[in-house]
């Protein structure tokens, strides 16, 4: 109360005007700082409302686990698209995770300071390349490579691993999408895993080295156990980026609405479904609601992974920030 009276009584002096402006902006900022939260909720609610028509008329289990996709006959089963998304993402992770984690360990534990400073801009560069350009690269380089080299090579083992059966004469496949995605998420995973490794106290390494451990033993027994949560979170974060990636995957994955059985099958991930069909979504009843619920499913998958990894990372990186 006292402070406010003081402000009122001195309304003419420049000091109080400055203080008052500060107070006003401070109060207004409370509202302003709510924008991100409101925006996030607004996106969720808008997609939820727009997908209501289809959620009300079709049982949710049939939508999520039905595999018939015939919009003209009113059948909307998202299983081919959800499984396509998961397949492509898993293939990308299988390729990217070992490479990225090893690279992050190399940069953090082995590389010289000069190399570390040199690599950061290169990773930024890799992360800055637009996804359409990745898509063009995929079409020009990866798809023919999968078709001509990898598929004939790996399908020799298809009698042991049915997942390697060559079913598709072209290279437009889950594997091509996975390779392109792996390159796209690599800079994210490497950058975050590297930061997590840097938070491990140097005393731990010194203690381990002083006991006569080799460098790799130090990493294996002292550094990695401490950094495991954070590295895991970085992988999940990369995974959620891969789930939502649209254009690059759309261009190389073949876009056939089927449940893939082999890594050489074509697939049709959720983002590709949304991007490819927005043109005709007004002409077929319930089609727009179906595409909006596809966005909603995608958003929920991504949000779940993101929130999980952010909570884990927040805990790990807190000491540093």
């Amino acid at each position, binding site marked *: 109360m006292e402070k406010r009276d003081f402000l009122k009584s001195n309304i003419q002096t420049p000091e109080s005007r400055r203080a008052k402006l500060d107070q006003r902006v401070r109060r207004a900022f409370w509202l302003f700082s709510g924008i991100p939260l409101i925006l996030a909720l607004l996106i969720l609610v*808008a997609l939820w409302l727009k997908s209501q028509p289809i959620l009300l008329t079709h049982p949710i289990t049939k939508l999520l686990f039905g595999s018939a996709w015939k919009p003209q006959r009113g059948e909307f089963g998202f299983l081919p698209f959800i499984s396509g998304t998961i397949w492509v993402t898993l293939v990308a992770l299988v390729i990217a995770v070992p490479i990225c984690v090893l690279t992050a360990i190399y940069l953090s534990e082995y590389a010289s300071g000069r190399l570390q400073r040199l690599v950061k*801009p290169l990773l930024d560069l*890799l992360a*800055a390349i*637009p996804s359409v350009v990745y898509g063009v690269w995929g079409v020009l380089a990866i798809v023919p490579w999968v078709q001509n080299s990898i598929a004939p090579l790996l399908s020799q083992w298809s009698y042991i691993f049915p997942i390697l059966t060559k079913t598709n004469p072209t290279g437009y496949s889950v594997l091509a999408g996975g390779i392109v995605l792996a390159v796209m998420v690599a800079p994210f995973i490497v950058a975050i895993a590297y930061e997590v490794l840097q938070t491990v106290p140097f005393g731990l390494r010194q203690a381990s080295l002083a006991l006569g451990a080799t460098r790799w033993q130090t990493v294996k027994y002292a550094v990695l156990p401490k950094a495991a949560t954070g590295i895991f979170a970085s992988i999940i974060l990369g995974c959620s980026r891969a789930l939502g990636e649209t254009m690059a995957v759309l261009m190389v994955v073949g876009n056939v609405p089927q449940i893939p059985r082999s890594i050489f099958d074509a697939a049709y991930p959720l983002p590709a479904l949304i991007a490819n069909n927005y043109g005709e979504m007004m002409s077929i009843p319930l089609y727009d609601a179906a595409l909006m619920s596809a966005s909603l499913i995608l958003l929920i998958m991504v949000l779940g992974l993101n929130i999980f990894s952010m909570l884990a990372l927040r805990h790990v990186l807190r000491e540093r920030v």
Partner: protein
Amino acid sequence: MKWKWQYLEEKFIQFLMLISFGLILASLLAILFTILSKGLPSLTWAMVSQTPKGGFYLGKEGGILNAIIGSLYLALGGTLIALLFAFPLALLLNVYLSKTVWADWVRFSLDILWGIPSIVYGAFGFTIMIFLGWRASLLGGILTLALLEFPIMTRAMDEVIRRVPPDLSRAAYALGSTDLETAFFVVTRQILPGVATAVLLAFGRGIGDAASVLFTAGYTDRIPDSLFSPAASLPLAVFFQLGTPFPEVQQRAYSAALILTVIVLGVSLLSRWLSHFLDRYSIQ
């Protein structure tokens, strides 16, 4: 004999690490090489100085000036609007709310927004535009891109502001300045290089994003003359031309991809140089 096994393991794992590191570098080089070698042969002056003429999508005359201009309009507009919100939010977040629970929530929701895929932003923007009765237009694209860039920019600025030495604001407070004056006259000057980097980072993301403008900005062969006319964009020019069955048109898609890559990498280099240049004006 145990030391020998350890030695082998060490060498083996180092070998694997070098291979992994090499693979990542090699993929970067492979992308740049592919785009350069395929894009350069068909890159002509007409490509960047003309709009599409009749029969362009069958391989006839014309260029992609419409997409270049459209992309610049979209990304500039989106970056400007995002900056209007991102800068005060990041700055005042650290001055007024520095270590409160609410600030944690704001950062948390910014991270959530940062992780939302651009196709979902596109779908959301499209929904809002239908609700308002708008057609696909430059303005719709700009607003959607602003949504996409806003969290990227804010988080990047926030990281920079957090690293400002506390002594700086303490000195300002000691001279009698209010929180607001400290933020806008003292902290702002200190974080200028970081702000420039954040803005250019968001610009680069915005100009390269296709999924969000696909629904909202549309595509046209003309250079947009008002905020309410549709606008073409470079990523979509690449995408649509690659989708045609004609080799001449696909060739143009490659050179459009090259132009886009050059713009994005140029922006990335510019941000590096600019932050280095502006660093002179901040206290180390």
